[in-house]
């Protein structure tokens, strides 16, 4: 065991010193994940805006005005739709929340906004920050609307002037009544003049003091189903990760051919260690490198890009089983030719095809169905599938067994074939 670990550490040290190899193993996958993640996410929405659905099923004009008010908010990206689609999209996590105005909901008991329906908000209870933010925006819009309705002194003064003129010129009102009315409206005019002089200050304090000013918002909890990716990074990081594993596979396959062509393998073979130990050392080195790359990339994904891990135990198993899988493939690729060029050529060809049909380029969920069938022959597909299962597909451990077994099988079979061919080379 000691010898195996020692052999493996030598290989890891060599990998760490290979700057070019490291690029393909870490930097390139990360760039892939970030690049495509950014492209996909910019298509969905402006990153800083809160994407919500607005469902306006109210016929009142005040509801319409309220929606117009929301529309002006730069903090929101709004899509209009029916109640059902809004619910579905929020439930899938595609939209942060929906805001619904409907006549069937009970009327808000607002004195000033007469026909304002209750504002219904549907949001995932886990989205606490967004929920608070959205309520703030709704409250603000509501106040603005209310203020427009009741607190426009110029509007009121104009109306009072018009009224006094009408009273003056009326021939049907008797002069005594006329006098009483003129006095009443004149003092009303004075009152509004007073208000406009003292400005917004008095009006806002008046509103805040008002018992019916708080907006009629009703919250509804919508739990998001986990089996949908919430951000594009949840798709591109498993992809990037698999590219990293392909990089590791090629790096180690090349290191095995180099050992053979340079003659260091000959030195290993005549040392007092067994062939099994040499091969186990190689296997362990590629296994550890795969695990290390997975852990690094997943840590960045989680800490920096907020990629969720719905099933941590499943993720750990996915890391281990893909590492087994690709360590086996290392062995097979390393014997696909006698020279470094032959192995590099054949190796990358196989890797690229596997990646193409396996969802390394076009994400699995966007593939046409015939391609999905084809993808079952790719180790990359099972790797991505297992990672997605643990990240956002919401697989239970039971759901994960199948992809994990497939990955392990691929690893064992390719390793066995690789070793058999290697032993033939040695004769």
């Amino acid at each position: 065991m000691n010898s195996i670990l020692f052999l493996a550490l030598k290989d890891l040290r060599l990998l760490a010193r290979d700057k070019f190899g490291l690029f393909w193993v870490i930097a390139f996958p990360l760039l892939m994940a970030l690049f495509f993640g950014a492209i996909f996410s910019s298509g969905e929405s402006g990153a800083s805006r809160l994407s919500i659905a607005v469902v306006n099923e109210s016929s009142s004009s005040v509801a319409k005005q309220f929606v117009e008010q929301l529309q002006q908010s730069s903090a929101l990206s709004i899509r209009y739709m029916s109640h059902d689609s809004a619910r579905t999209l929020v439930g899938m996590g595609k939209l942060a929340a929906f805001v619904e105005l409907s006549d069937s909901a009970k009327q808000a008991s607002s004195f000033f906004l007469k026909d304002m329906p209750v504002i219904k908000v549907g949001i995932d209870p886990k989205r606490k920050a967004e929920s608070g933010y959205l309520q703030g925006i709704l409250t603000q819009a509501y106040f603005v609307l209310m203020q427009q309705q009741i607190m426009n002194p110029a509007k009121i003064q104009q109306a009072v002037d018009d009224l006094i003129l009408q009273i003056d010129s009326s021939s049907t009102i008797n002069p005594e009544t006329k006098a009483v009315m003129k006095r009443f409206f004149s003092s009303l005019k004075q009152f509004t003049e007073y208000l406009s002089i003292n400005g917004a200050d008095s009006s806002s304090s008046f509103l805040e003091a008002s018992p019916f000013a708080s907006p009629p918002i009703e919250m509804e909890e919508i739990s998001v189903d986990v089996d949908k990716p919430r951000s594009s990074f949840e798709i591109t990081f498993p992809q990037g990760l698999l590219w990293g594993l392909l990089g590791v596979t090629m790096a180690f396959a090349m290191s095995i051919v180099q050992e053979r062509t340079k003659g260091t393998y000959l030195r290993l073979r005549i040392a007092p260690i067994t062939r099994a130990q040499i091969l186990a050392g190689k296997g362990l080195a590629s296994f550890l490198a795969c695990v290390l790359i997975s852990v690094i990339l997943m840590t960045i994904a989680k800490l920096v890009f907020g990629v969720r891990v719905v099933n941590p135990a499943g993720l750990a198993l996915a890391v281990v089983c893909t590492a087994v899988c690709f360590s086996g493939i290392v062995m097979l690729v390393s014997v696909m030719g006698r020279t470094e060029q032959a192995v590099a050529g054949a190796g990358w060809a196989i890797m690229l095809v596997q990646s193409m049909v396996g969802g390394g380029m076009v994400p699995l969920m966007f593939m046409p169905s015939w391609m999905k069938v084809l993808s079952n022959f790719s180790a990359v597909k099972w790797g991505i599938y297992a990672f997605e299962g643990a990240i956002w597909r919401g697989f239970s451990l039971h759901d994960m067994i199948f992809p994990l077994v497939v990955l392990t099988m691929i690893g064992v079979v390719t390793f066995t074939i690789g070793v058999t061919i290697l032993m033939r080379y040695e004769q």
Partner: protein
Amino acid sequence: MIQVTNLFKQYGELIAVDHISFDIYDGELFGLLGPNGAGKTTTINMMVGALSPNEGSVTINNEGFPTEPDVRKRIGNAPQSLALYDELTAEENLAFFGRLYHLRGKELEKRVMYALELAGLVDRKKDRISTFSGGMKRRINFACAVVHNPEVLFLDEPTVGVDPQSRNLIFERIEELKNQGRTIVYTTHYMEEAQRLCDRVAIVDHGKILALDTVENLITTYGGTSVIEAELESLPDESINLPGRLVGLHLRVETDTPLEDAMHLVESGVRFRTLRIDRADLETVFLNLTGRRLRD
């Protein structure tokens, strides 16, 4: 003692090693001399247990096959290719191969230091192999075979592509190692090397051993005559019975005993202006055995 018995190795149609047998004695420096493709490397690889022969066997120190762990510990091999990790330093390479032979701690440090001195590369120990010249790589390749202090040492063309200084250093080290009592098997296609270093030489071609003996005996048996070429100062007396052919003042003598003949001429009063003795060498031996030169 190393016993090679009826060793045979075939790659498809091609016979690389064709039923060869020989013994190597303890403390001997044994040479395998032959052109490229003669089967030297294939023979060595079978002797160190890296390649299994189709027929025949190898036993080392009467103890058994070179594939047994106990035997392996006592064998060192410097492969013909530069079998080193380019991105590890000289010291790291030596330490790695030392550990493969179960050296640890102080003992390992001591042996690594010894090997670095042997290679004359102590001051470059922290540098990566990829920064070394061809000669330096050869020296480390050689030192890696010695780091675990083996009793039997196989050196497969250890001087290919090196500068004269490195070559001399390697020669000196090999002689040192031999003087310490080690058995050394040395392959080369340079006859000067075999002639200088080896106690006995096996001349191989097309997988067969054509001749095996000490250098002296090989030359005597297969070298044919030596040649004395001389310019005389003056025509000698009629009374002196000159061997060979005299044209003007130029004398040419073909003989098996050139030194004795030259001495005899001097004693009988012949004065030379120039004198050259072309002794037969292993090149001539190979030419006489195969009708081809060693290096084409």
